[in-house]
């Protein structure tokens, strides 16, 4: 008799559970009899990380260190100190032209010794916003810092909004008088979607 009661209880539970399942299913899916119907238009916008250098060349041309000093200093703010190189008033400008915010890192193919050569050369960079609020996470570096061949994260959250999607990368080179020859290096920016 006890077993019979237990079975009855279990059966009641099963029925209740099944009934609840039915109710939930009907609620989720909906029942027929509705006077309206719906149509669905589907489309997908894919995320795409894309960055580009609006200004992709810094070329000081040919020049020499002045007679008295032992080194010249070249800046991308238009300043050339103790040298005869062309004035360059525009650094590199990097734009986020994708549709997703990105983390931006820079690498250089060469550091100062390989790029410039000579005695105690310097090759430095600093980053600033070309358009206000382009980098909500803060920039790095914001003061002259030696260029590295390793990866340097300059902005952890660069906006893709057209009104605020550009960063400036200014460069400085100290050219020792004994660094004769043609110099060149490649700076690579990588933007990773976040």
């Amino acid at each position, binding site marked *: 008799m006890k077993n*019979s*009661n237990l*079975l*009855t209880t279990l*059966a009641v539970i*099963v*029925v209740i559970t*099944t*009934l609840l*399942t*039915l109710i939930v*299913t*009907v609620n989720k*899916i909906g029942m027929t009899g509705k006077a309206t119907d719906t149509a669905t238009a589907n489309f*997908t916008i*894919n*995320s*795409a*990380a*894309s*960055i*580009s*250098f609006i200004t*992709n*060349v*810094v*070329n*000081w*041309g*040919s*020049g*020499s*260190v*002045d*007679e008295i000093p032992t080194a010249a200093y*070249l800046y991308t703010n238009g300043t050339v100190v103790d040298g005869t190189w062309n004035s360059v008033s525009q650094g*590199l400008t*990097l734009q986020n032209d*994708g549709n997703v915010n*990105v983390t931006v890192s820079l690498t250089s193919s060469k550091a100062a010794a390989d*790029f410039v050569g*000579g005695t105690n050369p310097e090759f430095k960079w600093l980053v600033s916003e070309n358009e206000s609020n382009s980098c909500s996470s803060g920039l790095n570096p914001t003061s002259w810092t030696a260029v590295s061949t390793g990866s340097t994260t300059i902005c952890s959250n660069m906006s893709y909004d057209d009104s605020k999607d550009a960063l400036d990368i200014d*460069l400085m080179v100290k*050219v020792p*008088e004994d*660094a*004769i*020859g*043609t*110099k*060149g*290096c*490649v*700076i*690579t*920016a*990588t*933007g*990773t*979607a976040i």
Partner: protein
Amino acid sequence: MDNEKVIVALLLIAILLSVVTLAITLSADVQKKNAESVNPADLVGVESADVQLNVLPNPAKGGSS
């Protein structure tokens, strides 16, 4: 004996309800769509720039720097 009949009746009801639930679920126009696969290449952008200069000897220093 009465309990047995009740149990059998309840189980039959449970089976019937399960079948109805299954039928509704199967007949519903429900589609499970896999998430769009994202091409990893779309998540990374790479761009390069050149920095150049030419260092000449200063003639005033005898042309040899």
